[in-house]
């Protein structure tokens, strides 16, 4: 009771903060303080619950019908990243997007940011179809306004409209799902269905949930809104969209499937395969991006794919009553959700710092920022290692959970999906390493490729602090993961009703061992660095210091002659489906001037869908004739409809008997 009240109060705090920010002279400190207070309340309640508190609920009535809010381990598992990233984003946004700006509106941004967090808080504790849908819509619409913050620019407007169309299509499907669920549960309040009575009905709910939540989570054919929306939003908004809002889709899948009595066996395997495809597709496209925020967005698609693989594995476990698979699948998925929200928000904050300092999202215009923004480079480096799933950082462990799950799935004889998953996970990890080598190498190493990068500088302390906290958490989670095992066990028990707590028993020793090895390696690395920096190491002549990085002796032309990000990623062209290039043919011994172009077009959204949608819109223009502008004609339509209804009532009895 107390916990859920705290979370509700937190939602109220965020909402109040949002309202305050919208006033004409926003009391900035008060609004921020309210938001942070809300975050602390929700974090406290969630941690209390995950550490062993019991689930608490609140029952009330909406229009005379019972409704329910409840905080259980699954809700808490999602509230945790929401309020961590939400609160840090609030601090970060202070300087990143000041209230008084010549572009966009700081007040507008703060209002919808607060509303987004409040709505998502409500979403995670709703156990009532209508409350859930209202919170879902509130979240979707505030995200639309946030994506469109810089609505003066046409591409931003376009991105936000595409997002709105997609999210509303998803909501439509979810509304149908909620209605079906209400039919089965005898009311809009969500209760677990104990026994399966109609496989068709439950199959329908599952398919609608997959499609509706898939739009939000960016599952493969439904992901096309995601990259441009994330690239267009202000960076701290991109962080919360990517770290939490995409995961509401996963939350919905887990929540709805936990209410259903059973999952058909094939569905888990199919979801695993879909997740695998999404992961490889996302990372392949991430590799092809010149825009670093778009690269991060595609990497989010990859990570959502990995999370879906975990969910699919867990569903397979549920279908075959295999508790170990359930634990590893759901546990891995949830752990990866936490980890992804940590390192991806850190990466977006870092990208925001770079954007703030240089004003461009083009990687090829940057370079050498490690010298000019040393602190940013330092705090962002752990995230780069984490996203490529390297130890000792956190994402390594969640992917390790999944590897273990996939291997045991393989050993238990569900081979095809597990084999595909293993290959995809390995491929995605490797390609992510390339993509982020490109990201970090092009942005921070080398020497500046343009004027804007020359004068970059580290951001303000209030922007660095959230990044430092997140970087510390990435490392801490990586080293202290064994402490999280009981927490994950509790969440898995909600996602898969009746699953025993296996993670703690099965993985504790392994994680202890891993942590020990990692700690040892860290100490070694530390010692190595200390040895390299020993006092007698800097006796080399000081003239060397001024030479540009990778100058190779050609000090004057080095900046233009360096490897570009695109050339770095060129070797992996076959896995970059959206890349189109125009290469000139060079003939003769002394060819004249030539130019090389390459452009990226989103394979599904821009290449496949956009022309079809345009054609459809053109066809629909014919219906404009129905709108002549005369009031009388409109009234005639009403009259004709009325007459048709009456005639139908007259003839209905005759026709249908």
């Amino acid at each position, binding site marked *: 009771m107390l916990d859920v009240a705290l979370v509700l109060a937190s939602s109220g705090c965020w909402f109040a903060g949002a309202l305050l920010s919208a006033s004409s002279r926003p009391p900035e400190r008060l609004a921020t303080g309210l938001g942070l207070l809300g975050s602390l309340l929700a974090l406290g309640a969630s941690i209390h619950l995950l550490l062993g508190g019991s689930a608490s609920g609140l029952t009330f009535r909406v229009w005379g019908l019972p409704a329910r809010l409840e905080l259980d381990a699954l809700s808490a598992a999602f509230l945790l990243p929401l309020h961590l990233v939400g609160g840090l984003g609030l601090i970060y946004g202070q300087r990143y997007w000041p209230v008084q700006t010549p572009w966009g509106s700081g007040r507008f941004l703060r209002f919808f940011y607060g509303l987004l967090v409040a709505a998502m808080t409500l979403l995670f504790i709703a156990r009532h179809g209508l409350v859930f849908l209202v919170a879902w819509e509130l979240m979707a619409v505030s995200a639309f306004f946030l994506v469109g913050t810089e609505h003066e620019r046409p591409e931003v407007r376009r991105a936000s409209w595409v997002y709105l169309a997609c999210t509303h299509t998803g909501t439509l499907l979810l509304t149908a799902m909620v209605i079906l669920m209400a039919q089965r549960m005898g009311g809009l309040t969500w209760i677990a269905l104990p026994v399966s009575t109609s496989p068709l009905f439950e199959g329908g709910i599952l398919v609608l949930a997959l499609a509706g939540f898939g739009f939000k989570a960016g599952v493969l054919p439904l992901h096309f809104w995601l990259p441009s929306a994330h690239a267009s939003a202000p960076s701290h908004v991109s962080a919360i969209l990517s770290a939490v809002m995409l995961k509401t889709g996963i939350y919905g899948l887990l929540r709805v499937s936990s209410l259903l009595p059973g999952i058909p066996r094939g569905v888990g395997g199919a979801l695993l395969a879909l997740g695998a495809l999404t992961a490889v597709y996302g990372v392949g496209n991430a590799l092809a991006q010149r825009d670093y925020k778009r690269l991060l967005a595609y990497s989010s698609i990859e990570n959502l794919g990995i999370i879906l693989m975990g969910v699919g594995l867990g569903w397979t476990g549920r279908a075959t009553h295999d508790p170990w698979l359930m634990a590893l699948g759901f546990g891995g998925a949830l752990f990866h959700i936490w980890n992804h929200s940590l390192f991806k928000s850190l990466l977006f904050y870092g990208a925001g710092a770079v954007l703030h300092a240089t004003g461009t999202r083009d990687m090829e215009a940057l370079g050498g920022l490690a010298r000019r923004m040393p602190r940013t480079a330092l705090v962002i480096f752990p995230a780069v290692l984490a996203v490529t799933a390297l130890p000792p950082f956190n994402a390594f462990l969640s992917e390790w959970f999944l590897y273990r799950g996939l291997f045991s799935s393989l050993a238990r004889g569900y081979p095809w999906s597990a084999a595909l998953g293993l290959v995809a996970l390995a491929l995605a990890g490797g390609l992510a390493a390339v993509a982020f080598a490109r990201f970090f190498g092009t942005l921070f190493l080398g020497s500046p490729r343009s004027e804007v990068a020359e004068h970059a500088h580290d951001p303000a302390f209030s922007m660095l602090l959230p990044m430092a906290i997140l970087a510390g958490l990435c490392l801490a989670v990586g080293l202290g993961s064994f402490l999280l095992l009981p927490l994950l066990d509790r969440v898995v028990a909600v996602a898969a009703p009746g699953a025993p707590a296996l993670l703690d028993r099965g993985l504790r020793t392994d994680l202890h061992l891993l942590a020990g090895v990692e700690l040892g390696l860290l100490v070694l690395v530390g010692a190595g660095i200390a040895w390299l920096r020993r006092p007698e190491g800097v006796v080399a002549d000081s003239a060397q210091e001024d030479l540009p990085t990778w100058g190779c002796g050609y000090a004057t032309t080095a900046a233009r002659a360096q490897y570009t990000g695109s050339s770095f990623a060129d070797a992996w062209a076959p896995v970059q489906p959206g890349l189109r290039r125009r290469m000139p043919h060079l003939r003769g011994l002394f060819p004249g001037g030539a130019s090389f172009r390459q452009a990226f077009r989103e394979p599904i959204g821009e290449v496949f869908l956009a022309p079809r949608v345009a054609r459809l819109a053109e066809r629909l223009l014919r219906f404009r004739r129905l709108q002549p502008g*005369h*009031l*009388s004609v409109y009234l005639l339509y009403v*009259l004709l409809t009325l007459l048709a209804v*009456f005639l139908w*009532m007259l003839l209905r009895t005759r026709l249908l008997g």
Partner: protein
Amino acid sequence: MMPDLLIALTMLSNFSLVATSRVSKAIQFAVFQGVLLGLMPLAMGLGRHFHIVLLAIAAVTVKGWLIPFLFRRALKQVHIQREVDPYIGYTVSLMLCALGTGLSLVLAHNLPLKPGTEYTLLVPASLATLFTGFLLLVSRRKALTQVVGYLVLENGIYLFGLLLVEDMPALVEAGILLDLFVGIFVMGIVINHIRVAFDSTDTRHLAELKD
């Protein structure tokens, strides 16, 4: 006896409304119809219910005094020509109105009525008035005559409401009345604005506002 007479008069005034060629005549008929309907509940012997009497008085006041007053003012302000100026000729309108009335009779015959309803003419009359209102709205060109159509349409709804008058909360009827008043009021303002903008109250000009 009395209610049937009033209903018959209402249906007759429908025909006069579509057949008249003068704006002021059309207004007079619409007002006449409104007053007739305002008296209906009393004729139906519902005088024992206090709130119904109150509503009847309010209806007669609004339809018999307030609305004609607004109309007269609008007529004076915008200097409208006396002609109704229809899209469809008077004869065709009359025939359409007859067709609508016939259809309403057929329809009402086939509609299930609440058992124990004594006024079987009420439903066809209400539907016929609805159709007439629509016909006027669709086929008349001037903004003011369109308002008359709206008024007649509301009369039809009011007539239908009489069927349920004993069960319907007073709030609903009061709502309809208020709706009507506000509708006419707003349309009066709009008419004036149309005249200012286009120098005429012909609604054809409004098509220019289309994007």
